[in-house]
């Protein structure tokens, strides 16, 4: 009986640790300046959303927390990725349509800054774009649930900082529109 109790206790601990790790991995940890945050801290082996940073084409470092309060679509893409380029007009249109209502697209590119800069105009991208090496971006995408590291990959993060969904492959314009309308932040009076 004592053996059963020990096994039961160990299993409870394992279950709680597994759950808490998953929670810490995907829970948005608010800006570090917020001393009253009650969000669980990420362990050394996990990545909190707020800890994810990208380097903008302007050389500045951007944190996901910079867009806290918006419905944020993080769209990983690359200039060499055909399905990514096919998807971009829908993203540009969504930003234009819903930007004033609290929606924001950002586009971390698994690419060379010069290649991205040269094609922004052709692609019509007018939302913030960042770049990073394949190694950096694959690591970040892995932390966000994209183990194969393939593109395009999108993560929709709610205004409250929680991941709503992620999506591997291109969104159609209709899919994207439905998803955004379902999760737009409530409009202030």
């Amino acid at each position: 009986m004592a053996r059963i109790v020990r096994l039961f206790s160990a299993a409870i601990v394992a279950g709680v640790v597994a759950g808490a790790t998953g929670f810490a991995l995907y829970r948005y940890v608010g800006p570090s300046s917020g001393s009253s945050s009650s969000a669980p801290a990420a362990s050394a082996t996990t990545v909190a959303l707020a800890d994810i940073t990208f380097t903008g084409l302007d050389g500045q470092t951007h944190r996901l927390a910079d867009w806290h309060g918006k419905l944020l679509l993080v769209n990983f893409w690359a200039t060499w990725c055909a399905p990514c380029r096919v998807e971009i007009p829908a993203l540009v249109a969504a930003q234009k349509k819903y930007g004033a209502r609290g929606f924001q697209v950002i586009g971390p590119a698994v690419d060379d800054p010069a290649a991205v800069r040269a094609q922004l105009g052709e692609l019509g991208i007018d939302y913030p774009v960042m770049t990073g090496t394949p190694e950096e971006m694959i690591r970040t995408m892995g932390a966000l649930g994209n183990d194969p590291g393939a593109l395009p990959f999108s993560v929709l993060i709610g205004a409250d900082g929680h991941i709503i969904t992620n999506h591997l492959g291109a969104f159609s314009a209709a899919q994207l529109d439905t998803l955004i309308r379902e999760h737009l932040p409530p409009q202030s009076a």
Partner: protein
Amino acid sequence: MTGLRVLLCAALCAGAPLAGAADFTWSGPSGGAALLPAEQAFAMQPVTWANGRLRLDWNVAPGYYLYRDRIKVDIPGDPPGAGRLELPPAQPHKDEFFGETHIYRGHLAVRYVPPAGQFPRTVEVTVQGCADRGVCYPPLTRTVAVQQTSSIPAGR
């Protein structure tokens, strides 16, 4: 023993509500099996050296393909692109954005003649490909050791 199983199951399931609290869901590309990691989708075989040239082989998994024009082979220390890459005929492929391109499916064998013509201990190889399910992989660069063999068999 059945009672023990029930207890263990109940205990392991206790963590599930915490994990689900992030409202995290997965919606991958349509269709069947999970997407393969790039290393499995484009499985590279040992690189061999014989008769003054390298032979490089890949087994591309069904449903995946490599772009012909995105295969790069270099010897560390040599100027990039200095050697001669010998590629087999590739399949025409209509890309939804890039238009007419050329790709490889299934087994791919290429040869590379280094500029100095000497046995290289290592080789740096970059490939890039996609899956038919509408996703592409970042360029995959690997530095691999070269195995020396006596000769490349005829027909290979």
